[in-house]
């Protein structure tokens, strides 16, 4: 007992130090933006599982840029948020199936605020003080009765990856949190390495691309790209579903988006009883990558986030007159072939209705990640061509999105009308040169992916990271 007390005291002292050091960070945040990372979709992936090709894997990530050494307040899903993955399977851009995820955090020892008071040897270890479980529900819209069917209740999540003392056998903990539900659906929710890779530092410095630095309007020496998401974690909801359960006959292509919703809490409670039971308002959604960042203007983001994909025609002008293309002309105009900045129906088509002959779902414009489930996986996990369809790999983005797909380079080229030879030949899309070589110089994730579900690499350990 005494030993344990000593341990707690030491942990508390350490925790105090860490907080002190971390203080400054909360003041670095942009004070005008209301930070809400726990309800912030970072990335969405949907692909046919290479190791289980009769299934589709959908990965919805939340909480951007989690530093691994983030104690004592380790990141977690928010118990007050409704996390959802929506699937449209008949091309009308309205969700037909919604998988809902709600979390619940338990406090095992109310006498301490610490995350753990000893090594976490298993998911039921009493020294893990803040375990989080979740419930999965399926709502069938339209044809179904609209009621939520509980697919799984009180499912385990792994702890965050803290260090060799707190989480000595992390991979086993994470593996223990992969749950198979009735009907062959497999789920996982918890911290993982963020599989996204991008040179944010350069891109947010006046749209710089390090390999093309000498060609920028403000030239710098060329250098390799730097992955700004390397060594950061995220929180992942992953679900693997038999294809037969989500497609409709004659419609092999599904449209997917993920969202986070918060309760509308009003001042006057309707019945004078406890609050918090207002309707859910969608505060974040994500279909195609980088739309919120690169297409939707700053002042419209709140509105876009709470709009339904089926109403996305109202944002179509931001696709057909894209800001990114204008910037590419402005900043790389001397080096690139002139890019059209109006009437870009190519972008509206690819991003809002799907590529004809590949994953077109119909004329209704909606920001959905479209996956043609009749196209077989082309490679093992992580081994697909990073340029996806641009390089003729039809199992990759924009046909769904695999973890290895380099969506930054693909979209940079698409916005610059450098679609590459394959799509030029197939669809007559422009293949302007050297626009078809653009890229941020970051081509892959910093950690290798796993060969099996949930595929994302284990989170970086706090102890390991400088």
């Amino acid at each position, binding site marked *: 007992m005494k030993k344990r007390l000593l341990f707690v005291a030491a942990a508390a002292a350490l925790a105090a130090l860490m*907080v002190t050091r971390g203080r400054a*960070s909360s*003041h670095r945040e942009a004070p005008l933006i*209301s930070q809400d990372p726990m309800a912030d979709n970072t990335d969405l992936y949907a692909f046919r599982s290479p190791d289980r090709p009769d299934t589709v894997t959908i990965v919805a990530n939340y909480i951007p840029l989690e530093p691994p050494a*983030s104690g*004592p307040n380790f990141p*977690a899903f928010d118990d007050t948020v409704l996390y959802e993955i929506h699937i449209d399977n008949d091309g009308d851009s309205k969700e037909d199936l919604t998988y809902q995820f709600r979390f619940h955090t338990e406090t095992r020892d109310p006498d301490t605020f610490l995350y753990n008071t000893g090594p976490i040897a298993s998911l039921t270890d009493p020294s893990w003080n803040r375990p989080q479980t979740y419930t999965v529900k399926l709502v069938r819209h339209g044809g179904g009765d609209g009621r939520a069917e509980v697919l799984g209740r009180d499912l385990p999540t792994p702890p965050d990856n803290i260090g060799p003392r707190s989480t000595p056998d992390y991979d086993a903990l994470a593996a223990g949190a992969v749950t198979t539900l009735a009907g062959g659906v497999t789920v996982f929710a918890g911290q993982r390495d963020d599989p996204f890779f991008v040179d944010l530092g350069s891109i947010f410095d006046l749209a710089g691309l390090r390999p093309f630095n000498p060609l920028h309007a403000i030239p710098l020496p060329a250098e390799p790209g730097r992955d700004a998401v390397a060594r950061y974690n995220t929180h992942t909801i992953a679900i693997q579903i038999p294809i037969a359960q989500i497609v409709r006959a004659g419609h092999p292509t599904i449209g997917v988006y993920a969202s986070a919703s*918060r309760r509308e809490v009003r*001042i006057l409670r309707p019945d004078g009883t406890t609050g918090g039971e207002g309707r859910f308002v969608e505060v974040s959604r994500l279909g195609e990558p980088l739309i919120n960042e690169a297409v939707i203007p700053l002042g419209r983001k*709140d509105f876009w986030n709470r709009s339904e994909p089926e109403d996305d025609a109202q944002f179509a002008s931001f696709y057909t007159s894209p800001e990114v293309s204008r910037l590419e002309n402005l900043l790389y105009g001397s080096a690139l072939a002139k890019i059209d900045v109006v009437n870009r129906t190519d972008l509206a088509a690819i991003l809002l209705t799907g590529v004809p002959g590949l994953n077109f779902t119909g004329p209704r414009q909606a920001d959905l990640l479209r996956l043609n489930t009749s196209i077989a996986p082309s490679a093992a996990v992580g081994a697909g061509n990073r340029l996806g369809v641009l390089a003729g790999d039809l199992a990759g983005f924009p046909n769904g999105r695999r973890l290895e797909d380099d969506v930054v380079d693909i979209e940079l080229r698409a916005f610059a009308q450098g679609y590459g030879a394959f799509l030029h030949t197939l669809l007559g899309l422009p293949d302007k040169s050297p626009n078809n070589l653009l890229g941020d110089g970051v081509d892959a994730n910093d950690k290798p992916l796993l060969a099996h579900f949930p595929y994302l690499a284990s989170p970086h350990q706090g102890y390991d990271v400088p």
Partner: protein
Amino acid sequence: MAATYSSLTQALPVILIAAAAGAAAALAPHLVPHDRRAAAETTSVGSSGAGRASSATTADGLRRRIGELDARLRDHPADAAAAVPLADALLRLSRATTDSRPVGRAETILKGVLEAEPAQYDALRVLGAIYLSEHRFRDALDAARRARDLRPSDAWNYGVMGDALVELGDYDKAFDAFDTMAAMRPSATVYARVAYARELRGDLAGALDAMRIAGESTPAQDAEARAWYAAQLGELYLRTGRLDDAAREYRRSAFFYPEYPHAIVGLGKVKAARGDRDGALALFLDQLSRTPTLDLAARIGDLHRARGDAPAAERYYQLAEDLAGPAAAQTEANLALFLAERGRKLPVAVAIAEAVAAKRADIFTEDALAWAYYKAGRITEAAAASQRALRTGTRDERILAHAAQIAAAMQGRKAGRQEGSNSGQEGRKSE
């Protein structure tokens, strides 16, 4: 007594020139923390504790950024793309260093942009927040309404509008604005506002619910915000007499953010409520050395007085007055309330309360006015102001206690009049 309203400032961190009230007032008498009750309580979010920690890092970073943006702005004076981030950085520098002067510059810069381009949205949006931090609530309201008209889908503007309206005492409109914000974009910042609105309406259980959700919705990485919400929960528990729960939340707050002023002062209040005067005094004195505020000095004075040490009490009461700054510069009635409650300089107390009440009609200003009138023997005026202080249905103990005494004095006066005597003396009794 709870500083719940600072939740709103927490919610819109930029509107807060955080600082110990005293320190800010000393630097710039016109500037004390946005929230009257935060001022009366302790410090505001981003208190000097954080300011010290960040001044070596963040403040330097901000200064560098300000230098770069300044250079850009020299070449293109009306360049909104440089001016708005510059104003934003200046506002944050004020917050990090407790020096209010950068805010004045920020205002000038934004006005320059708006002169060249009256509908420059981002400039207008930040300007409202700057006015709030300067306690220019009507100007803040105007700016926020114009911004709202330009971009009705931006939930932020309803927050600025609601904050200004609350400060002005226009509660129905304020609550509408908060509800609109909640419908558009629920977030911790909205939940905190809802909690405060419910508290104003006397719904403490509802306030606790909303504040709990606000805390849960706050990211782990934002330790300061988490500490802030935990401290607010502590305040609400304290007000409902749940001392153990209050102590737990204050401890949680200090766990998230060591030496967090709200947490330390809260723990002191729990000790005082439990009768541990020495324990409370030790915590308050320690905190006073870091964040000198009117409220802390007044609490310390009270504790000395309760121990029978009148000279020490007087020293701290004098310090409290000094920390509040000159009477003419008050935009809050907390100095008036302090003077009235301790029976000091009653004509000054009345003058301050009247001057503030001419500009705003929130229930805390009305209460201070009522109490100043009462102590000055102006019972009829006290009763009218007291009625206005009760209009939201608040269950604030201080307001209710004042109202009860004033009502009793009115009764006594009526009875006295019938008996031909004067019971106005009642009002002279110190609390």
